[in-house]
């Protein structure tokens, strides 16, 4: 039950002189949903991108499913197959239909046959509520639909871990709910998820654990009812009051 999926030890990342991650330790167990919150520039997206090595860490260890990704001799393509990633900007392949977006990696990477790949694709499209959009082009879909397709595309690879990099930040407010709904269902189905988000409501209701990052370090972490509702650190409190009460008119403590 408490098998470790992600193990990060002493993770460092610098872009030239800019030290973005200053020693992160993190463990995510199977089936756990971990939400990472924090101000922009705090390094939370970089942390996520280091987990599947889209960014090459400058120090420390990252292991997923027992495979050490920071080993220079690791087959990174093989390791990434088991890690789904959902981007802020969806990044659907704009020259392919929705169905082809879901089948192309299955066929070229997992070497599944056409029939099997399409069967898996349609099953996952149905899972995100877009079965009828199989033949549409990405540009014909709303942002929310595109993001749900992107989630389905990752799921079609049968990942053991899903990374979400601010999946709703590029969406119109009325489309956010659909995407969060899909993610919630996914979490309830037992998927291991690492989510960078600004949706405090989602983090509070779905996360098993919330990480607050600032200045490249994890300032505090714990169950959402503690980190979000009763933060221990001043920086967490300041951040949450800005997010939950943007106009600074209410009392300087987060509600609830």
């Amino acid at each position, binding site marked *: 039950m408490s098998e470790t999926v992600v193990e990060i030890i002493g993770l460092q990342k610098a872009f030239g002189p800019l030290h973005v991650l200053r020693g992160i330790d993190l463990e995510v167990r199977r089936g756990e949903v971990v939400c990472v919150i924090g101000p922009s520039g705090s390094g939370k997206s970089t942390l996520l991108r280091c987990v599947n090595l*889209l960014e090459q860490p400058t120090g420390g260890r990252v292991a997923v499913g027992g495979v050490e990704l920071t080993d220079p001799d690791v087959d990174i393509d093989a390791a990434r197959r088991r890690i789904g990633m959902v*981007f802020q*900007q969806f*990044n659907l392949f*704009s*020259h392919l239909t929705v169905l082809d977006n879901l089948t192309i*990696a299955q066929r070229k*990477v997992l070497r599944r046959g056409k029939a099997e790949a399409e069967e898996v694709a349609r099953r996952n499209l149905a899972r995100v509520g877009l079965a009828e959009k199989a033949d549409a082009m*990405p540009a014909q879909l709303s942002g929310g639909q595109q993001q749900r397709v992107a989630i389905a595309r990752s799921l079609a690879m049968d990942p053991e871990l899903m990374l979400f990099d601010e999946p709703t930040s*590029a969406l119109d407010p009325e489309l956010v709910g659909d995407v969060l709904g899909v993610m919630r269902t996914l979490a309830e189905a037992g998927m291991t998820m690492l989510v960078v988000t600004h949706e405090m409501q989602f983090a509070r209701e779905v996360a098993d654990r919330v990480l607050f990052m600032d200045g490249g370090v994890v300032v505090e972490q714990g169950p959402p009812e503690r980190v979000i509702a009763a933060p221990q650190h001043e920086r967490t409190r300041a951040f949450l009051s800005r997010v939950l009460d943007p106009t600074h008119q209410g009392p300087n403590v987060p509600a609830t």
Partner: protein
Amino acid sequence: MAMSKRKRAQAVRGGQYALLVVVAVVLAVVADWQNIGRAFFNLDVARAQFPEIISTALVNTVTYTVLGFGFGLVLGLILALMRMSSVPPYRWLASIYIEFFRGVPALLVFIAFGFGVPIAFQVRFDIYSTVMLALGLVGAAYMAETIRAGIQAVPKGQVEAARSLGMSQARAMVTVVIPQAFRIILPPLTNELILLTKDSSLIYLLGLATSEYELAKFGRAALNEHQSMTPILIAGLCYLIITIPLSFLSRWLERRTAGGKKVSAPEATGLEVKA
């Protein structure tokens, strides 16, 4: 007398039309229409050009251009990938090639290819291979830069998504980046094809047999034979038959790409996203 701005603009425009009419009238009166007609519009000479100017010359021009374009496109793609390679010598080689073949006149390349290469390397290609190589080598230098620009215009997120799905760098390039890059560069590539169509007129330098004449060479041969400019005029019109539809195609593709961008605006802004 004070004129309103609008009236003045009208007067100026009227003056311009009047000037145009005067010039046209003067030209019509002064020109020696009989001589011009004999030189350019000799119907007997014109009739004598058919059907060969179509069945041989036009067909050859199109064939040469397609061969050169095809080879140039493949070579251009390889050069573009070399230019962006992580291996420095590949980058240097590609840069040198591109700078060289863009910098020297195609004319010189064809002369070198027609006379230098057969002597230097003791090889003798048939005309189609020679044309394909000569036109392709020149065209590739231009197309390489166009293709590279296209590849770099594909949003970075596309590669990241492909890599996240477990695709290798090469696999992502082939299945995701290059197909999108070609969509982006279709309009400039069509222009490249138009330029190459016209450049194909230079291959007479390679030395052509009668059956290998393309439009320009065909026109010049007929000019010598009939002492009339009429074949040149017809050859020119034949070029337009090829190039005008291509330029319409290019403009249509450009409009379509521009329209497509508008639809996928969120995708297009995905360029500089990084939290």
